[in-house]
């Protein structure tokens, strides 16, 4: 462990009153080249729950999120130390195929990124690359119903996904993610580009989706975290030895505890809006 006292609570904060853990994060540090972006995180993700990552910009919450489906592999120089296990399997074991990981751990991005294809093809794409052999029409309908978009687009499935509004595009991306039937869905600030009404729809959707999926959501919006998440992890950033800032996990607990009775002063300051 480091000598920095503020990183100490991490070890304890991985303890949860949940037995069914999907993802375990054990003493994980993430580097971009020689720059340490995230330091010594311990964090368990329980099954069929919504976990929110909150914290100021640059605290490494998105960086950590992208390790859970190995999307950081795409960034040259990105490196993970420590251990992340997904249902008991070490995600960074050299034998693990990142493509297979991403089929089980889906992702919704900050900026809606539908492919320049039809609405139908946007959903069929993921299913096809995953070797889906069933009824494609049925899957497209089920996925669009699952993301509460079906009624709005059922008559224009052949139109481009880019013809939809921002909120619809983001729900299309959610439909696309659930079409491949992952076990976990990562959401990286999925509502940051949406208006309040679209945001509420996506939040309602998250409530429904957790019956079926485990969801990890990064958000800058604390009301959103308190509305959708069962558990909340608060990350903060601190200047390290060389003056470069690294992110670390401050506190991880039931959402109501984080917002009402946090154990750390910095959490209290952040959720009450005193900094950040």
């Amino acid at each position, binding site marked *: 462990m480091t000598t920095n006292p503020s990183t100490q609570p991490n070890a304890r904060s991985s303890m949860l009153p949940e037995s069914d853990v999907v993802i375990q994060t054990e003493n994980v540090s993430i580097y971009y080249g020689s720059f340490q972006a995230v330091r010594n995180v311990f964090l368990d993700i329980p099954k069929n729950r919504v976990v929110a990552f909150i914290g100021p910009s640059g605290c490494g919450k998105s960086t950590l999120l992208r390790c859970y489906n190995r*999307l950081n592999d795409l960034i*040259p120089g990105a490196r993970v130390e420590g251990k992340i296990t997904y249902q008991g399997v070490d995600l960074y074991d050299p034998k693990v195929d990142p*493509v*297979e990981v991403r089929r089980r751990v889906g992702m919704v991005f900050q900026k809606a990124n539908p*492919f320049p294809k039809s609405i139908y093809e946007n959903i069929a*794409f*993921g299913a096809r690359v*995953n070797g889906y052999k069933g009824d494609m029409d049925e899957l497209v309908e089920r996925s669009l119903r699952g993301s509460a978009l079906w009624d709005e687009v059922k008559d224009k499935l052949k139109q481009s996904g880019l013809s939809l509004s921002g909120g619809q595009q983001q729900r299309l991306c959610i439909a696309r*993610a659930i079409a491949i039937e992952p076990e976990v869905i990562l959401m990286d600030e999925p509502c940051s580009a949406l208006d309040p009404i679209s945001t509420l729809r996506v939040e309602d959707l998250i409530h429904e989706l957790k019956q079926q999926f485990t969801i990890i959501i990064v958000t800058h919006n604390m009301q959103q975290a308190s509305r959708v998440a069962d558990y909340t992890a608060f990350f903060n950033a601190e200047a390290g030895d060389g003056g470069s800032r690294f992110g670390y996990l401050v506190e991880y607990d039931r959402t109501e505890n984080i917002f009402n009775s946090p154990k750390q002063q910095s959490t209290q300051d952040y959720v009450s809006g005193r900094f950040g």
Partner: protein
Amino acid sequence: MTSLTTAQQETLIESSSKFSGVRLTDRIFYWLTVILAIGIGLVLIWITYSLLSIAIPAIASFGLGFLASSTWNPVQDVYGAFPQIYGTILSSFIALLFAIPLGVGVAIFLSENFLPRKILTPIAFTVELLAAIPSVVYGMWGIFIFIPAILPLLKWVNNAFGWVPIFSTSPSTRQLFAASLVLAIMILPTIIAISRDTMISIPPQLRQGAYGLGATRWETITKVLVPAGLSGIIGSIMLALGRALGETMALAMLVGNSNRINISWFAPASTISALIANQFGEASGLQKSALFYEALVLMLLTLAVNVLAEFIVGRFQQVE
């Protein structure tokens, strides 16, 4: 309600002395660009008009039959452009046949992070240098090095597949196919550079979205990135085709300048630009007019390619 003082109001009025100098340069710049833009249009009209006016005697003598006739006889003053049109289109087609897969492949390779940047940048630069080689140099290289080097291979193809009409003649040292291969190398940089720029400019979110759904790199490239960049790729191909159709020096040196249509690709042939380059010096009268008629045909051909390119690029952009 607040209102501006008189002094403040004056600064808003355009004749304010402080800004009049700036306004004058603005105005001069505006008119300068207008004149230049119109000038370019005028040059195009001028060229077309001169081509047309000199070609008129040939158009009057041979009509549209010129396009389908294979005679080129300065002694009897009878001319036809069919072998040249055929050679021009076929050589460009063969060149594209090789340059498209190779060029698009290299463009994808250079736009993805297959290689570390330290190696990538010099390679990309080298590719662009290919475009800087003068075409007469390509011609010399073709005559003295490239054609002798590939001739044994072509002979083998002729022996093994001689029953296929396009390989049916013994490969000549000046021939359509080898010339088209050199042409393919010449148009490669156009395809690579523009396709690569297109691929690089595709938003990274699309790539991440595809990977995030569990697509492999191959699936991401073929099913998301290439379709997303298709309008740019097609644009690059059309520009390359435009260059191939008009390419003169290398083809005049390599294609054999035979005024006959041979079904075999290994036989000598001719192209419009090669014919013009070979004959303009001693042409006069109706022969000169016929050459201008050929030039007009070439111009219309490249114009058609450009219009088609605009159309196709526009179509694909609508789909996006």
